[in-house]
């Protein structure tokens, strides 16, 4: 991960802080900001690492050096801009890695339709954090990679769950699933076939998409599902 050249479109809160972090990690960064006043503010700190311009314009991207960019991150407050910046970065300038911010989660489908992945929605991230902090739902999605057909979920084993008090091998988990970690009393370990699952354990399960309900049924009782 060293020595990347990153172009960040949008020097708002997200873009500015991202630029700062990447610079601290030793990467080369150019931020592009279309609001003159915002640009002047950010320029006091980032100096030559920020440029004034509309990153949806091709010459602005070229001036920022898009031909040699390893990564383009579009984090403006406008979803259409983010979509098109990533689209030209990928398809015209053949930039291999792009990341787009989705401001309105309802636009996520448009990003997928045009092949702009990954598209990151702050609303979704916060929802995940809430699920993580408030595990009363019993289930947290830690990782979803639909393209790769891979999911990792975290479950808290409830008192009267079918799995409580049984060994992993005897749980009758569906094919395409595997318990990869058990967190008990603040410490995690990789379970063996004879590891007995206890109520209150947090288990991490890797699974094929679509079989989540079968797995949830083993670890969380009906009433425990909140």
């Amino acid at each position, binding site marked *: 991960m060293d020595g990347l050249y990153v172009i960040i479109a949008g020097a708002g809160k997200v873009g500015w802080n991202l630029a700062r972090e990447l610079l601290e990690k030793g990467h080369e960064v150019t931020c592009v900001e279309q609001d003159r006043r915002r640009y002047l503010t950010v320029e006091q700190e980032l100096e030559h690492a920020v440029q004034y311009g509309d990153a949806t*314009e091709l010459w602005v991207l070229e001036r920022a050096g898009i031909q040699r960019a390893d990564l383009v991150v579009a984090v403006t407050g406008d979803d259409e801009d983010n979509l098109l910046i990533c689209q030209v970065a990928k398809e015209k300038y053949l930039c291999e890695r792009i990341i787009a911010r989705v401001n309105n989660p309802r636009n996520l489908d448009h990003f997928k339709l045009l092949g702009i992945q990954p598209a990151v929605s702050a609303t979704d991230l916060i929802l995940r954090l809430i699920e993580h902090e408030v595990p009363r739902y019993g289930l947290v999605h830690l990782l979803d990679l639909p393209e790769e057909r891979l999911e990792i979920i975290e479950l808290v084993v409830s008192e009267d769950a079918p799995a409580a008090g049984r060994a992993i091998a005897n749980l009758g988990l569906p094919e395409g699933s595997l318990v990869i970690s058990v967190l008990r009393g603040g410490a995690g370990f990789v379970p063996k076939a004879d590891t007995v699952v206890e109520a209150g354990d947090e288990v991490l399960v890797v699974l094929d998409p679509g079989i989540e309900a079968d797995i949830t049924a083993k670890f969380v009782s009906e009433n425990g599902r909140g």
Partner: protein
Amino acid sequence: MSVLDEDPLSHERLDVELGRSWEEAGGRFTIGTALEVDALIEAGVEDADVFIASTNGDNTNLVVAQIAQRRFNVDRVIARVLDPRRAAWYSEQGLRTICPTQIAIEQLEQAALGAD
């Protein structure tokens, strides 16, 4: 003919210029923004033979035209794009674009340098 616009005033303007109501003349009008899939569907994008994206924003036009093309499989999709370079690039990618800037440049050039 179906028009989608976020401003109800645009509807009134259509009426005034026709001298009768837009609906009487056989038109449809839907209030909404172009990126709302529900509004597009209400405006009839699923049955459209032709889709024209001509809002006052290039970026909106380029995005919504691609949605009409790829999601709703409209046969003929046209986008108004003021920026000549992007108009040219997107038309290379198979999207029909109309660039008023390019047309104006050609006409101005003709007016300035052409024969009387």
